[in-house]
């Protein structure tokens, strides 16, 4: 069987904040068309990894190849050319407050294409139909619920027909039904538009529902990569603790007790 094209390759990625390594030698390959989910506990560096993948953060060392381009080495203009081929759905939706839903979705098309307004209006309606929000074009972001904002963010992310869509915690802060709707939307978009999806989440239920492949990030490194089934059957205690959500295990929520007295006094 022919191996699918690698669209994202990360080699020995290291990123430190104030000397503390958040990513400490991450290696990863993501293939065209797959839905790749990065899981890990809160604050483990998932969003930092995502921001390195889209060039918002520069790594301290290592390489990130996005659609064949080493984005750690690119000038801002060249990086913009690569960014035209990707879309990003933010944790907070990041909709532009001063613009309507339609203006949010159409912004990239207006700024980067020479399409006529009538054509852009049709594209906006098509994208909003895909996320189930056709008819909401004239509302302001402040008039939308959390789930609707996420869906508008998604419509904006796919407005330019990107090759890859990145999702930062797409289901966090939503009720279970809306979570299910967003999960289905991610699967549908990947299938209907053949988009490569990279999802960062700590929601295991969502990860299992959408992922072709799951990678567990722990202690700044990728601990394990595999299909949902493989991850569920993993022999790693860390992975098992994360899947089951057990408070007792190798992943420490509290700091070690040995130095507690020293720290107190």
């Amino acid at each position: 069987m022919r191996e699918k094209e690698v669209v994202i390759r990360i080699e020995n990625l290291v990123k430190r904040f104030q000397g503390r390594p958040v990513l400490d030698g991450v290696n990863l390959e993501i293939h065209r068309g797959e839905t790749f989910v990065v899981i890990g506990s809160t604050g483990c560096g998932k969003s930092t990894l995502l921001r390195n993948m889209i060039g918002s953060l520069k790594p301290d060392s290592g390489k990130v190849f996005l659609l064949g381009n080493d984005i750690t080495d690119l000038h801002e203009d060249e990086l913009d050319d690569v960014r035209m081929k990707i879309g990003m759905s933010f944790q907070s939706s990041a909709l532009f407050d001063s613009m309507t839903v339609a203006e949010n979705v159409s912004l990239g098309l207006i700024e980067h294409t020479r399409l006529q307004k009538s054509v852009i209006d049709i594209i906006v309606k098509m994208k909003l139909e895909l996320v189930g929000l056709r008819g909401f074009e004239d509302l302001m972001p402040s008039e939308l619920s959390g789930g609707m904002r996420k869906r508008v963010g998604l419509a904006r992310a796919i407005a330019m027909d990107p090759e890859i869509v990145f999702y930062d915690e797409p289901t966090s802060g939503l009720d279970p039904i809306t979570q299910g709707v967003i999960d289905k939307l991610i699967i549908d978009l990947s299938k209907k538009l053949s988009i490569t999806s990279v999802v960062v989440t700590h929601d295991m239920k969502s990860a299992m529902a959408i992922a072709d492949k799951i990678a567990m990030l722990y202690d700044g490194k990728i601990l394990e990569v595999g299909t949902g089934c493989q991850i569920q059957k993993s022999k790693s205690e860390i992975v098992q603790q994360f899947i089951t959500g057990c408070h007792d295990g190798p992943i420490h929520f509290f700091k070690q007790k040995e130095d507690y007295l020293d720290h107190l006094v």
Partner: protein
Amino acid sequence: MTNPIVAIGKTTINFFQNASSVLSLLATTIWWSVFGLFNRKASGSQSILNQMVFAGVQSLLIVFFISLFTGVVIAMQSAYQLRTLGAVIYVAPMVSISMVRELGPVFTALIVTGRVGSAITAELGTMKVSEQIEALETMALSPVRFLIVPRFLALLVMLPCLTVISDFVGMLGGLIVGVFNLGLDPYRYVTFSFNFLTWKDVWTGLVKSVAFATIISIIACYVGLKTQGGAEGVGKATTLSVVVSFILIVVFDCILTGLFYFSNM
């Protein structure tokens, strides 16, 4: 405890880094402003118009009142002194020259800093902490071109306009005192006001207002884009932006006055 020498060193380095970043932002903004003249999308022009209305038209009322009462106060204070010399008519040039050279440009700049500069910082700061700036970058849209250039150009046009209005309204304040309190002939008062004014008074005042517009817009935008840490961060950034702009306006006023009136220009 931090070593005071280390603290001074860090503060100095921080100061120069920020100063160089502000200058770099100014250079980028000027470049995009010039480049944008040949490459302006409809949304950009609309954005500049909106900013001009906000920064200029909506500032008219406060500029009017502050300038009017400033003119009244200068007229009363100078009349108090000049009356002892029997030279009350010289209240007219006193008011006109001090308004056109100094008080018009400086007071208008301080008003606009408080009203517009703070709003710019708060808006950009909120956009920064809610990931909207990052969303723009991910969509390959430059925040400088999209957010800063319209605000910069709007202030560059509107602040000199407001300054001219402030000059006239200040003179009107003086005229009210001159006619109704000091019993001067209105025609004689106006003639005296303008006879003592030179073109140099006018253009130096306008050059100052252009310099102040640059300071207000660039500092407000820079501090806004550097905002970190949620609502508290936005509050702190807004205060910082106003304080830094106030200081720079007064310092540059001093430098420009020295340059225009105490050098061989």
